[in-house]
């Protein structure tokens, strides 16, 4: 038995190496969709995730790699390139079929299936053939996987029983297994099945394309339907099958074409507007798919086409999101253990943390930055000046250097005259003084940082969204909520987040002068499967306008699940390789999240997990320090970390100064 949790990290890297882009690797149980279900044993691919079973009853992790290769093979070997119009040209048998009426926004696969009387049968046949083709392509391209594939198949074969071939669905099930290499030749004695096998073998080779498998599927379908003496049991009803993800993915791939098309239209439109061509009422609506636009483009028609396409894109996007679940193509995901103090043990790989760059939604102004820095930096700098500055120092008496060291030289001469053997270290050398520090600032971006610094005035409560949001448990996952919060920012009240942002600006300005390397991160999230870790600045990035924008874009988001965020920041600090690693956590309250503990509102669990995460950091050589602007912070901070490791700020506006003091104490050692 092997668990995904044990192999997830190397498997994620393996997938990234093979695919050339990042994919989250998740257990099938994490698949969240309103339309589709995945059986726990299934594997599937979505735009940014490869789903595989949480456990495999097999001793070797190579089985997971086989599954990943098979899923990625669909991208690599062109499954989603399938287009009905090309199929019509390539497959003669398909060209003769009458086209059904095109439905609104359906995948090319679905349209293809609907050309026959029993689309679900054709679908099953096609996906079987296509899987077999992909498997053949994978083995040809990655020959080393062959032995793993064969061993895994052999193992599966031993656990499977051959179904009887009495109904069509049994025949299809057997065919499914054959396509996956789980039936040995000679296991069946059905003429229908034999016909299917020979067609499948013809299409399942590395040189074949998705159209070859579509052709083979059509042949088998026709043959079976003509010869079939079995009852057609309820194949066309029921929920959408696992294979449906393929259709959605094809729609998703098509989305990219549409996006490109929209971009092109935008450009054309801009150029036409500039040219000032006459507006002629549209002829573009009459264009057929694929037909070229006449050279004399008219703006109005173009505009219409542009708007239609944009609308179509939006609708398609939301439908796909509905079917395949939310996507985070720009994030990387990591799993972390969580400390459960009630059971006194770690919950393995309990949290999923998404790391992504904080999107810059605000264009920060340099002048404002300068104002904040000017107001705070002098005092802060005075404190930090006590930390030794960078520079060079001259080291004398070395074997090799840029200058002769005259004292050493004279002594060497004296020694020689006296008949002693001289010291060869007669040079001096300039050496750089290193301050080997890396600091990570971890800023709490929970919703409560939106609170005003002054005592709050009664404000209307914000209702959680009623529909449309993806995570129904998540009251923050909605634009209305964020908009309301943004509006409150405009009302001119100073909020905790404003001071946090300013502190980060001041610290950046000062640390840039000091030359120490530092990273700025924000964290939030909602629920254990969605801890968010936002990268504002990495230690190896220089401070640019983009950093400024990112700091300005730090905004209140959701909950405060501190444990995983601390563990992730620790991981980053360890990767920095610096000798002194500092983790400074800025928060406005105790750790909390919707499922941070057995009961909601129980803060003890969160406190204990955070305390454990801080201890882990300490053991790994990361010096941590908690700064909070919550005046009641003493109550819980003293249970989370030693007294010398936290600071409660009484006056929030003092945060920049307080931070620099903390930094000086930690880094000036």
């Amino acid at each position, binding site marked *: 038995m092997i668990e995904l949790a044990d192999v997830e*990290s190397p498997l994620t890297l393996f997938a990234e*190496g093979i695919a050339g882009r990042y994919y989250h690797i998740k257990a099938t149980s994490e698949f969240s969709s309103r339309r589709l279900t995945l059986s726990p044993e299934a594997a599937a691919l979505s735009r940014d995730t490869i789903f595989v079973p949480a456990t495999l009853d097999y001793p070797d992790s190579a089985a997971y790699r086989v599954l990943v*290769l098979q899923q990625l093979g669909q991208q690599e070997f062109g499954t989603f390139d399938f287009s009905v119009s090309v199929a019509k040209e390539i497959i003669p048998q398909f060209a003769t079929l009458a086209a059904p009426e095109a439905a609104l926004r359906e995948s090319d696969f679905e349209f293809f299936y609907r050309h026959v009387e029993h689309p679900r049968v054709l679908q099953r046949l096609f996906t079987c053939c296509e899987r077999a083709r992909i498997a053949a392509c994978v083995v040809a391209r990655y*020959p*080393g996987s062959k032995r793993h594939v064969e061993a895994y198949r052999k193992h599966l074969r031993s656990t499977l029983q051959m179904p009887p071939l009495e109904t069509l669905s049994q025949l299809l099930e057997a065919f499914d297994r054959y396509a996956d290499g789980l039936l040995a030749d000679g296991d069946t004695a059905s003429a229908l099945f034999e016909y299917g096998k020979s067609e499948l073998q013809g299409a399942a080779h590395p040189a074949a394309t998705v159209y070859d498998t579509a052709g083979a599927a059509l042949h088998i379908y026709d043959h079976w339907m003509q010869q079939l003496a079995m009852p057609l049991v309820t194949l066309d009803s029921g929920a959408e099958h696992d294979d449906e993800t393929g259709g959605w993915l094809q729609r998703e791939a098509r989305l990219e074409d549409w996006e490109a098309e929209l971009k092109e239209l935008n450009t054309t439109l801009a150029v036409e507007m500039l040219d000032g061509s006459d507006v002629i009422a549209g002829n573009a609506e009459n264009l057929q798919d694929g037909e070229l636009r006449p050279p004399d483009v008219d703006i109005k028609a173009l505009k219409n086409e542009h708007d239609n396409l944009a609308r179509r894109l939006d609708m398609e996007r939301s439908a796909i999101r509905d079917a395949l679940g939310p996507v985070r193509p720009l994030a990387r995901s990591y799993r972390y253990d969580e400390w459960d103090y009630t059971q006194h043990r770690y919950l393995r790989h309990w949290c999923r943390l998404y790391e992504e760059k904080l999107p810059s939604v605000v264009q920060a102004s340099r002048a404002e930055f300068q104002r904040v820095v000017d107001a705070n930096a002098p005092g802060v700098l005075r404190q930090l000046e006590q930390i030794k500055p960078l520079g060079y120092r001259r080291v004398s008496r070395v074997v090799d250097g*840029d200058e002769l060291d005259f004292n050493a030289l004279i002594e060497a001469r004296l020694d020689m005259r006296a008949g002693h053997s001289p010291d060869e270290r007669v040079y001096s050398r300039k050496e750089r003084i290193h301050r080997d520090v890396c600091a990570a600032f971890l800023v709490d971006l929970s919703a409560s940082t939106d609170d005003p610094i002054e005592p709050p005035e009664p404000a209307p409560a914000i209702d959680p969204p009623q529909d449309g949001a993806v995570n129904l448990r998540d009251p923050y996952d909605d634009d209305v909520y964020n908009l309301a919060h943004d509006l409150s920012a405009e009302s001119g009240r100073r909020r905790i987040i404003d001071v946090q942002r300013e502190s980060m600006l001041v610290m950046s300005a000062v640390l840039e002068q000091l030359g120490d*390397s530092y990273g700025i991160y924000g964290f939030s999230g909602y629920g254990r499967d969605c801890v968010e870790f936002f990268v504002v600045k990495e230690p190896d990035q220089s401070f640019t306008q983009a950093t400024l924008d990112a700091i300005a874009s730090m905004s209140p988001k959701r909950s405060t699940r501190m444990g995983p965020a601390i563990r992730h920041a620790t991981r980053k600090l360890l990767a920095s390789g610096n000798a002194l690693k500092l983790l400074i956590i800025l928060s406005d309250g105790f750790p909390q999240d919707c499922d941070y503990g057995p009961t909601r509102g129980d803060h003890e669990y969160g406190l204990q997990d955070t305390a454990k995460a801080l201890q882990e950091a300490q053991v790994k050589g990361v010096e941590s320090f908690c700064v909070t602007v919550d005046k009641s912070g003493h109550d819980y901070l003293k249970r989370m970390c030693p007294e010398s490791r936290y600071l409660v700020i009484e006056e929030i506006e003092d945060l920049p100064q307080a931070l620099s003091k903390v930094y000086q104490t930690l880094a000036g050692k």
Partner: protein
Amino acid sequence: MSEAVDLAALNSEPYYLPLADEVELFRAAYDAKLPVLLKGPTGCGKTRFVEHMVWRLYREERSHETELDVPLITISCHEDLTATDLVGRFLLQGDETVWRDGPLTRAVRSGAICYLDEIVEARKDTTVLIHSLTDHRRLLPIDKTGELLLAHEDFLLVISYNPGYQSVLKDLKPSTRQRFVSLTFDYPDEEREATIIAVEAEVEMELARRLALIGAKVRNLREHGFEEGVSTRLLIYTASLVIQGIAARRAADIAIVNAVSDDATVQQAIADIVDVVLP
């Protein structure tokens, strides 16, 4: 002296497979006496390209004109490399100190090509030193002897630099960068890399293709603790080990998996990639 100075005699042609028009561009820059900057990741063939060009320029085309024993002086820069190491220093000899030219000074005097490999690694004062050599003056001031050395007419300075490497702190200053014409290098595509591996290590094309595929796939993981990906050089090493009778997987293990990263997870992932790509 602490720096590695490679004195290449270059009597036979170093193999180099041009990827674009870099050969013509380099020759044009040489004829126009323009210093050249080679940008690209480690092990993608920058040094080999310079050797190849020096062979062409000094051994093949102008062999009747020049009798330089050492037409190429390569200096691998490191963070302790100072201006003194390049220009020269006084050495103690008996009762006196004698001046000894550094490798850069030797190249400037003799008309060789001086190649400063990984220039960003060197101290900042080193990069400033080459400023007067790289503009119309072509002068090397030697402070310690008071000499102002005018470069030989055949002299050319070539530096290499690795943009993605390390942090921005090690970026090349614009004032230095803008004195050079830049040729950008990257790893060759799979097919050409396979050809290079096959020629260099004298292995069969099938194995070379497999190794090139490993190279391409492992480079997809560049961000994970190793900025460079696996170099063509390492792929050639692997092939060379195979020729010596080492099993391909084992050869890849020591020449690629262990060489590229120290992170156990990354090593595991690379080993898995090697495992599925090799037959």
